[in-house]
């Protein structure tokens, strides 16, 4: 992967007082957050805090009920998901969003074909498969792959568009210790190459291992934000975690 040239002063993602309601339920309320280029940030919070809803609003799966979303300085609040994807953001969803009835290579091919010229597709597929270490599998049907392998495949698919911002919803969920380590390594490596990454994770060891900055959500709102060491030792944060999970 080519190293991206980044400007750490520049905002890549700005959420400005974003809210979302479902029926009568306020899932996210006036949530604001700013991410700089090249940042590796984790969004944490107890279950039901609205983290996944924030992700889906950033990606355009849900439209924000109010507030603004800026990506690379451009207002994308009302753009459709496909347009946002083409502007350079990708997501790995919580439940693996892979095409189960198709093969591994077909999956990556579909993810890549909007971004890679047809003659380079096969090489690109090879590169991505190698990057996430699932080369030895051959080309199985995706539904026959293990949970961890599907997670990595989805990361590979998210990378196929060569995005500037990568959203990872629980990249380590359901993985064994070795698998988790590999995922941590992979995420760090991608970040070192200039990719801005925002991720949601419950496994605090995983978070401590890789994240620099953390934003904590609680009941749909931002609770605190700051460097990881500060936040995990914040007594309020400890209280909400212990009190709820």
């Amino acid at each position, binding site marked *: 992967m080519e190293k991206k040239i980044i400007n750490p002063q520049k905002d890549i993602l700005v959420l400005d007082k974003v809210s979302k*309601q479902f*029926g*009568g339920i*306020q899932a996210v309320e006036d949530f604001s957050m700013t991410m700089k280029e090249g940042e590796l940030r984790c969004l944490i919070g107890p279950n039901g805090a609205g983290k996944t809803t924030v992700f889906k609003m950033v990606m355009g799966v849900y439209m924000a*009920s109010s507030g603004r979303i800026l990506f690379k300085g451009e207002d994308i609040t009302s753009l459709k998901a496909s347009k946002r994807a083409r502007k350079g953001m990708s997501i790995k969803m919580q439940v693996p969003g892979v095409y189960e009835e198709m093969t591994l290579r077909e999956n990556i091919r579909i993810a890549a074909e909007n971004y890679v010229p047809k003659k380079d597709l096969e090489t690109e597929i090879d590169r991505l498969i190698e990057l996430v270490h699932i080369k030895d599998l051959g080309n199985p049907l995706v539904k026959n792959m293990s949970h961890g392998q599907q997670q990595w495949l989805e990361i590979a698919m998210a990378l196929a568009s060569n995005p500037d911002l990568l959203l990872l919803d629980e990249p380590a969920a359901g993985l064994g210790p070795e698998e988790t380590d590999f995922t941590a390594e992979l995420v760090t490596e991608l970040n070192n190459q200039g990719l801005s990454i925002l991720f949601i994770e419950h496994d605090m060891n995983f978070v401590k291992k890789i994240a620099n900055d953390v934003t904590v959500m609680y009941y749909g709102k931002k609770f605190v934000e700051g460097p990881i060491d500060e936040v995990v030792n914040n007594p309020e944060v400890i209280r909400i975690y212990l009190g709820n999970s």
Partner: protein
Amino acid sequence: MFAYFYQFIDSVSFLVLAALGMAIIYGMMGITNMAQGELIMIGAYVTDLTVNLLGLPLGIAIACGALFSGVVGLILDRLVVRHLYDRPLDSIVVTWGLSIAISQLTFIIFGSSMKGIAIPFGSFTVAGKSYSYYKLMLIAIALVLIIATFVVFKFTRFGLHSRATMQNREIANSLGVNADRMNAGTFMLGAALAGLCGGLYLPAMALTPNYGDSFLVQSFVTVLVGGADPLIGTVFAGGGLGFVEGILDMRLNTFYGKIGILLIAILFIRILPKGFSGLYNSVQMDIKTRRNKRGGALA
């Protein structure tokens, strides 16, 4: 003027009665039952046979028809539809196959037409035109059914679970609502309502194996415009489409009534893909947000 009013309530009761069963099945199970017309037809056949062979009164016969359709629905669900809960696209094809087989079997057993039943209760005259009391009773029954649905959904455990299911099917499943039993009950209820509709309209229509087809377009369009909430959807879609259909029926003929509501439905879903149910949800949400904001300012 009364002629228009009469036509309007006639259209509305037809749409509501034809669509309610199907709307409940779609709203709660996410399945479109293409065999709904055949369940309507079965209700009508049982009603016809109970009156003409057993000599029982019409009211009891209609109840028998509804019950029998409900049982047929339950059997279809257990034998077939159950296997397709997570394959909604395939369930369309399969229930379509069922509908073809059922109507042809009915033809083989009972031939091309049945005796039918005369319209009871007589008629009355307004401004020189005659109208039937029976049709007025149908709108009353439609209203009673809507109120009953409301009560069931609002005040019973079944209703609570089904509303949870409608809001979010996945979450409801993960909360341990006994989805299988809920679905069987829902399908049976939907089928029984279809049978009821079939029996109720028997005095007004000729009974053939294709009897259910007369309800098909109207019930589908009502569900389409109504959306996932069987109560809100059916009431608003039935009312709105009934208005349009009533006028077109009076001005032109019933065929243009059908065309009219179909065209409106197609335009409607372009703007409001979730139908009246979706519109209702977002309006309700708006009101709540505003109320919350105002409350916040005061506090």
